[in-house]
């Protein structure tokens, strides 16, 4: 489903080029549950942005479901994000002035669904995360764990193939974090591809496959053998 081939990302800081990813190659099959671990500054967030089609690699190839993301137009990237990918962020990133249900509806607005359809699907997604009775609450009226579950409902509502989570438990207490991770387990069992980025080994252990990156290079992949320089 995901194929990265010698992907690099270099940022320009003034006149200095800062290489953040130095040639990552990996494959993720459909239905896998993968964690990407690494200390801050290791490039894991940049990798997540690339995987989430928020950004394009400087060099190298990224194929998502057989489509080359590297050469895509902005508009096609937006469509990919909308239909294929669901994001879960550490800071939840809910729109504060909208109710839980309307937050969950957002991806469907961009997908062009009718109001009726949107409401129905949003409620289904909220049922799935166990928050159907909180649908009319504003984010500020919900606990951190509840907000994160709303954001998971939002990530799922357009039935994406890939769920990308960036430190999903980073802002939560242990109990709420466990509940979120339980949800991920369930989604994985349903056959969704889940990629969790974290620096917390306990969170990483919940995945079937652990990838570790450091200084922009993959140093460990429990699923595959990696040679030095991160090239298979």
């Amino acid at each position, binding site marked *: 489903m995901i194929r990265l081939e010698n992907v690099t990302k270099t940022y320009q800081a003034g006149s200095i080029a800062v290489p953040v990813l130095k040639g990552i190659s990996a494959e993720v099959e459909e239905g896998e549950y993968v964690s990407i671990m690494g200390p801050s500054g290791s490039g894991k967030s940049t990798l997540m*942005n690339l995987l*989430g089609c*928020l*950004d394009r690699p400087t060099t190298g190839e990224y194929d998502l479901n057989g489509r080359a993301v590297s050469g895509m137009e*902005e*508009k096609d990237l*937006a*469509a990919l*994000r*909308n*239909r294929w990918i669901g*994001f879960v*962020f550490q800071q939840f*990133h*809910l*729109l504060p*002035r*909208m109710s839980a249900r309307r937050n969950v509806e*957002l*991806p469907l*607005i*961009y*997908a*062009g669904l009718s109001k009726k359809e949107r409401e129905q699907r949003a409620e289904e997604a909220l049922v799935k995360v166990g928050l159907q009775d909180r649908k009319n609450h504003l984010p500020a009226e919900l606990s951190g764990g509840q907000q994160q579950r709303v954001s998971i409902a*939002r990530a799922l509502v*357009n039935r994406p193939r890939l769920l990308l989570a960036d430190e999903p438990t980073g802002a939560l207490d242990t109990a709420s974090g466990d509940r979120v991770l339980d949800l991920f387990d369930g989604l994985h069992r349903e056959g969704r591809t889940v990629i969790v980025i974290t620096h917390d080994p306990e969170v990483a252990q919940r995945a079937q496959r652990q990838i570790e990156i450091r200084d922009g290079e993959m140093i460990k992949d429990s699923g595959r053998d990696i040679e030095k320089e991160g090239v298979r």
Partner: protein
Amino acid sequence: MNLWENFKMALDSIRSHKMRAFLTMLGIVIGVASVLIIVAIGEGGTDRLTESFAGAGNTINVMPSQDVQMSHNGQLPPDFITRQDIRDLEDLPSVKRVATASYESLDVRFREKKSEGTMVLGINNNVYMDMSDESVAQGRRFQAADFRRGNAGAIISHKVKEDLFPDKQPVGQIIRVGQQPVRIIGVLDSPDGIFGSLQQSQVYLPDQTWRNVIGKNQINQVVIQAESADQIRQAGDAAIQVLERNHRTEGDYEVMNLDQLVKGMNQVARIMTIVIGSIGGISLLVGGIGVMNIMLVSVTERTREIGIRMSLGATRGQILTQFLIESVTLSVLGGIVGILLAYGATSLIALLSPLPAVVSPAVATGAVLFSILFGVVFGLLPANKASRLNPIECLRYE
């Protein structure tokens, strides 16, 4: 995503920043309202101008030519128009009536009270008073018999009444015009509203009486009323022919068509409307810049929202549309409030002054279209800025 969704989002966003939205709209509100009010007053003023001259009804002024005026210090030369001329003019088929006016400035007294420098007018029929839009508030107008007598009564203006009869009924009293006693038969209505301050001291007398009272035999003004509007030119040409024949001169007489005067004054009124209207337009422009400014602030403030929306699949075009519609909604709301304000203000003006100020539906529609245009023009820059943001940086934005 359709426009309706965008519009609802815009309303949400405006609702959640009520105070700010209100202040932003204020510039547009004031701009639209001032333009509409100014245009309304301008149109109303033009209407009134046209109306007052239309009331004059197909009239033309007979005047001495430039050369004759020059040689007589701007006055009518003696015998410029004689009684015989008037009779000949009235015999013309295209002429309905001929009105003459004779002026003299004199002091008018009632017992110890004095109205200084009063304009004493002698008129040969009621046409002149009709043209000046004068109506009698007390007593009566001149009747046919008054014009045939040499000792008829006088009609005084409201100002003269105030000067001489502050607390007394003037009709029936005898005043002195110069040295001659004249009985008052009527009092004119006071001009209403803001024109009240412009009122003059005037005493009207039928022309025979005027000649006896003043002791002079001059005619200062001749106005010819044509039978109908399409006979104005014909009447004017015929009048000049008659006058030139009677006086055996050529080129001494000219007619001035009041329609031309009206057109000229309308032009002046239009230019005034344009000038003042464009000042209003500038305030609209400032209002628009206000919208742009606030929208730029709003874009910065909502950087994170933009990032979230992009991560959920919003295209740059959709972000652009969202902010554009928000600025259009803001300025159109402002425009509508401005129109309501203008309606209120013009109704008040119409109530308190003689100016019939009207906001025409066409102008109001124009204002709404203009607000939409303003919203687009001044929303483009902020919306473009929003759509060009990098989603990753937006998501990181605190």
